């Protein structure tokens, strides 16, 4: 993956990253010993690349810490599911708790990281990921707002551009927001963005230069010399 031809270049990959390479990168960035919640969809892929040495504990908001991989065959038990209602397994050291305790884990700031998908992220870290706001759409929010405001770090995984080619990193969200100023990092196929009080900085790019990236994204980007 790493083809850093020029030490000054932010470009760490000659091509945009696929979903699995992006999941691998997120997994590598999670500090050992962290308590982590992986959102439904693309973020779930991250669990495939967490190593035993990292000793990560996964939380699922329906009421469990120490969630293991998806259950297969005889392992399937209707009483043991994740937040996406997929049958899962328990690892040694797992614990179960009721819903208010499970959300206190998030809302009380005890989770180190949550990884979520998104429709849009604003330059100040506002997140939009729960509702398109389309007329007639039935809204459903689940735990998205609790995760966004409760975790110490909120990582977003998404493609940088919509199918129509519009940037999902925006000056201000046009979709209904999930949380205000909550996103700290955005992993996309074209770059990793760090969001802080100084604005949006780019940690690394994939298959494009910072200048090419800036042409796609309507908010001012800065290069960060140090990895985030």
């Amino acid at each position, binding site marked *: 993956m790493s083809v850093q031809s020029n030490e000054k270049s932010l470009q760490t990959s000659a091509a945009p990253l696929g979903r699995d390479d992006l999941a691998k990168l997120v997994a590598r960035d999670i500090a050992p010993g962290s308590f982590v919640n992986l959102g439904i969809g693309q973020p779930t892929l991250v669990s495939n690349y967490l190593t035993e040495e990292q000793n990560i504990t996964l939380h699922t*908001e329906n009421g469990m810490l120490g969630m293991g991989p998806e259950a297969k065959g005889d392992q399937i038990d209707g009483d043991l599911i994740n937040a996406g209602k997929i049958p899962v397994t328990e690892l040694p050291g797992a614990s179960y708790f*009721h819903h*208010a305790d499970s959300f206190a884990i998030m809302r009380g700031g005890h989770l180190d990281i949550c990884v979520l998908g998104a429709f849009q992220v604003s330059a100040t870290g506002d997140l939009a990921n729960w509702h398109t706001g389309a007329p007639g759409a039935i809204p*459903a929010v*689940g735990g998205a*707002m609790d995760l966004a*405001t409760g975790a110490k770090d909120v990582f977003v995984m998404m493609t940088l551009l919509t199918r129509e080619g519009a940037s999902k990193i925006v000056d201000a969200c046009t979709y209904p927001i999930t949380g205000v100023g909550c996103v700290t990092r955005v992993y996309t196929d074209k770059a990793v963005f760090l969001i802080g009080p100084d604005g949006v900085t780019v940690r690394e790019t994939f298959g494009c230069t910072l200048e090419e990236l800036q042409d796609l994204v309507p908010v001012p980007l800065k290069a960060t010399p140090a990895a985030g």
Partner: protein
Amino acid sequence: MLNFVDSVQDAVAGIKDGSTVMIGGFGNAGQPFELIDALLECGATDLTVVNNNAGQGDQGLALLIKEGRVKKMICSFPRQSDSWHFDAKYKAGQIELELVPQGNLAERIRAAGAGIGGFFTPTGYGTMLAEGKETRFLDGKWQVFETPIHADVALIKALKADGKGNLVYRKTARNFGPIMAAAANHTIVQVSDIVPTGGLDPENIVTPGIYVNSIVKVAGSGNTAEKAA
């Protein structure tokens, strides 16, 4: 007053039209299907139902909605690939929806059971789900005032009860059971097994019997594997 009843029909017989009913379960895990079927059979209508979802497939809560017994849903995640009965009622304007972030739903239920008149939380601040609600800047963050959710009745599922009504649950089927048991005036529990008083380790009781009013044994009710398949 704790009662052990012989049938799910007897257990739900006192539920009146217009009641607010909490129903345990997250998806199918912990959903008390047999009690919901009995509620459907008993004919109570004009209900406000509190559940995380708004019914899945053609069973349980989904049927209660299909039959027009539910006037209002208070839930966090109504829209699913198989929530067709709710979707149809909602689009026809035949069911009211109060959409609540999941953690607020859980904490508002917990608050009711704990005698808390309301609380401030950062969840939802600045979003359309907090529109019209009181906000305050507390602890360095903007927070939204949320009120408790009380219920007339809770229908929940546990693995085992003892003679004092103490309950233990199974895996992630625990979900809303303990907090709904505390938040409702009358809590009805279906269990797969009733053991003699003293048959559960007091250190491992999840719901103390003080929160429980009626218990009915339903064979195989501790594991939703077959229902979920």
